[in-house]
């Protein structure tokens, strides 16, 4: 278990008024405190890009649940990042339809172009590359998702143009 006092000593981080407001609004949807954790993590991540130990403490104070309750969630779900990530997240679908339609070539092209492997972030902190399961866009496969945008079918040529949009 993490030594919370130690984390707390490092640097106390406070949630912004905007974050607090959004979390409060979400709280109204549930009768229990814990249900709001996932949404709170997403809200905070949207502002700060990733979830640090310190921010977990701040969220736990805001919602009134333990540090561990939040950590348990933060490390289980793939959309929550416990380490810093790039400004843009590229998720390439590596599920079966995209496999048949050649996601591997797309992946290779991205890796070559950005000089990173899945799980890594470019040196300039602009992109992080991650695999993801079927994005429900199989009729436009192979598919990738950058931040909140879906693209498909992507080709080894079009992928570079798409990436350029985020420079």
């Amino acid at each position, binding site marked *: 278990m993490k030594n919370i006092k130690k984390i707390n000593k490092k640097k106390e981080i406070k949630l912004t008024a905007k974050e607090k407001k959004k979390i409060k609004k979400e709280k109204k949807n549930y009768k229990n405190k814990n249900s709001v954790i996932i949404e709170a993590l997403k809200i905070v991540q949207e502002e700060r890009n990733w979830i640090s130990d310190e921010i977990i403490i701040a969220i736990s104070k805001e919602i009134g649940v333990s540090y561990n309750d939040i950590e348990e969630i933060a490390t289980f779900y793939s959309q929550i990042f416990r380490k810093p990530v790039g400004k843009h997240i590229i998720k390439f679908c590596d599920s079966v339809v995209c496999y048949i339609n050649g996601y591997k070539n797309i992946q290779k092209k991205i890796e070559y172009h950005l000089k990173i492997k899945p799980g890594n972030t470019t040196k300039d902190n602009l992109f992080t590359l991650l695999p993801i399961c*079927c994005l429900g866009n*199989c009729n436009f496969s192979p598919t990738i998702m950058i931040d909140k945008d879906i693209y498909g079918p992507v080709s080894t040529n079009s992928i570079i143009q798409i990436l350029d949009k985020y420079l």
Partner: protein
Amino acid sequence: MKFKKKNNQTHPLTWRIRKDKKPIWIEEYCKKKGYKIAEETLNNMNSKEIILIIKNSELKGRGGGGFPTGIKWELMSKVNISKDKYIICNADEMEPGSYKDKLLIEQLPHLLIESIIIAAFALKAQQGYIFLRGEYIKANINLQKAIKEAINAGFIGNKIFNTKFNFKLNIHTGAGRYICGEETALLNSLEGKRAIPRHKPPFPALVGFLGKPTCINNVETLCNIPGIIKYGPEWYKGLSKSNDYGTKIMGFSGKVNNPGVWEMPFGTTAREILEKYAKGMCKKVKLKAWQPGGASTALLTEKHLDTPMDFTNILKIGSRLGTGVALAIDDKINILSLIKNIEKFFSRESCGWCTPCRDGLPWIVKILNKLEKKQGNKKDIKILRDLCSHIKNGTTFCAHAIGAITPLQSAMKIFYQEFKYSLK
């Protein structure tokens, strides 16, 4: 066969869909008879009557399991221990190769909302949640807007349609885990815990969300409700060409000319869907195998194409209908590599609760990797078989691991030559 002109009695799920595929907002939805059925139902029927109609229609769940919806509802309606009851719409669509619910949520959000209102009324649930996949951004935006519209029109909230019925509906977006589609794991996730399946019994109908009676239905299942209420079980049964009733959103993906999903009667053959709707295989490739409904369904071959697509007939030929959206695997694909892709997915998505799944699936991936590189030996195939035999009903906590090994087992049976060929 010529495509029938769509109308509310032939295509109850999709007849309202626009050609330009834009979402149908409340004004257009109401013009197209929307919310009329909910209004009539809430004003003129009681819970028992509604549940009886659904039971008589023999509607089966469209999330992949095919459990009779009426029976699920009846179970829930008999529980009187609590005033708090919940209805949850399972919209955590993550099965590789399936994208049918997305179509309904994105383009017909009000059909889903109207269906949930009727279901909630029948089940006496005062609160509902739509558990939506986090990556479905457009679906989320459209649903949020539609819910707001429905609240403003007085269709969600207090005293709906001037009745005594009050109902609140919220969206809960997931944070990315395939296992959330399993209904009890979904409940844990909704309660803000890790999505690990719960033991059944007790069933959610008795002990569900926050310990209260809860009914969980898939998006497509729910969207069938208004039609059934309006036109009755006999009409619904008559829609189908087989003994599983109603229509189903089915389709084909892979190297086909026109990948997509369409609403059609149960019992339409896979060949008809592949050839007439998906317009056949692309040039230069042939069909080698296919999966009827998602990554966890057993492989089938060309000779099975004439089987009617429904729960019973697909089961008879050794697979499962699953989500009903099929995948064509072409002859350029190495089956071993394809299965490795599928096993990798399931291994990555294991919740980690039980050993055969948590440790067995990565082991399977490792062996397939070896075989793919032609570095395996006969012993590896034996280990694969052993691993599969250790994963069965009763050795794992939920059906995830069993679903995972199903395509592998079928591939080893049908394409054993390819496995043998991969030995060093």
